């Protein structure tokens, strides 16, 4: 058609994602998080310099989906592995991708110390308040009263205590340079999440210290609700328990991000 118009591609699947079908459940926000990380790596042009460390959890096969070098860590140990990789290859971009069990339960020691050391790595923390891969047990971030297979009558705070707010804890450490919480429950929040991920990888490039983006995520299968309802659960139940915001921002970063 000769109207002087051309068809442009406005959005296409990022190159940092391999052209494969993933094993994640339909509607699972792991897919969104993977896509955002891949878009950021593409936009920064660092795909070939990037090394990822996969967790034990639903994202155990993350290395099959990202078009970057990857290591598989033992459960919770990804930050320690990432430390080993980064210390000997400081010019590389090193990131971990961890769930709530991997990061906040068994890996609590490792994440504390990687933030305390100010390790120049980027941590992508997927918080969906449950253990997905093993079939729906309680996570450290499971909400009071939330039913899981190891809290079948609802999480009783008298027995199991309260959810851990990891951003708040890690932000207290001097080595932490950028610690923020975002959400993946709707399009505007996904866009903000992407900006935060970009910032977290830039912080690494600038060598400012530890960077982590916590992403409130869904688990339709183990929450027992449909994908859209699961996103609504994030908005109505998880946001109050895990407030969005910037918990630590290194002074060297000029950011237009406010809370939320």
């Amino acid at each position, binding site marked *: 058609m000769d109207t002087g118009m*051309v*068809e*442009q591609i406005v*959005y296409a699947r990022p190159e940092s994602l391999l052209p494969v079908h993933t094993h994640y*459940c339909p*509607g699972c926000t792991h897919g969104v998080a993977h896509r955002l990380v*891949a878009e950021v790596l593409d936009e920064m042009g660092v795909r070939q310099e990037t090394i990822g460390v996969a967790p034990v959890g639903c994202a155990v096969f993350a290395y099959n989906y990202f078009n970057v070098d990857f290591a598989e860590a033992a459960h919770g140990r990804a930050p320690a592995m990432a430390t080993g990789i980064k210390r000997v290859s400081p010019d590389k971009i090193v990131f971990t991708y961890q769930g709530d069990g991997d990061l906040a339960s068994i890996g609590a020691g490792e994440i504390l110390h990687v933030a305390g050391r100010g390790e120049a790595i980027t941590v992508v923390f997927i918080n969906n308040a449950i253990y997905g891969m093993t079939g729906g047990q309680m996570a450290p971030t499971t909400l009071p009263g939330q039913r899981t297979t190891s809290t079948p009558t609802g999480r009783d705070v008298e027995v199991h205590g309260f959810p851990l707010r990891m951003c708040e804890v890690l932000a207290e450490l001097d080595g932490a340079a950028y610690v923020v919480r975002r959400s993946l429950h709707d399009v505007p929040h*996904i866009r903000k999440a992407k900006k935060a991920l970009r910032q977290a990888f830039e912080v690494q490039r600038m060598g400012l210290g530890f960077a982590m983006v916590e992403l409130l995520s869904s688990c339709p299968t183990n929450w027992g609700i449909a994908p859209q309802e699961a996103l609504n659960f994030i908005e109505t139940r998880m946001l109050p328990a895990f407030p969005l915001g910037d918990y630590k921002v290194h002074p060297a970063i000029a950011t237009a991000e406010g809370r939320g």
Partner: protein
Amino acid sequence: MAKGRITIDETLCKGCELCTSVCPKALIHMSMDRFTPKGYHPASLIDGESACTGCAICSVICPEAAITVYRWAPARAALEAA
């Protein structure tokens, strides 16, 4: 004709339906009459009125990065953008 269009890769789409609820013009629908190779009902663009603007909001929510978004733009603007 429409300002934009999308294609949904049916080898990737898992029929999660999230795109159907974010499209501002409600142009995406589930095709309940067929299955993808993996056995899901895929989503697809049904745009008889040529209403799609290529806003790409659907591609933001898609967990599978299955959506490619196209938009018609003036040739000169396209050259400058390139």
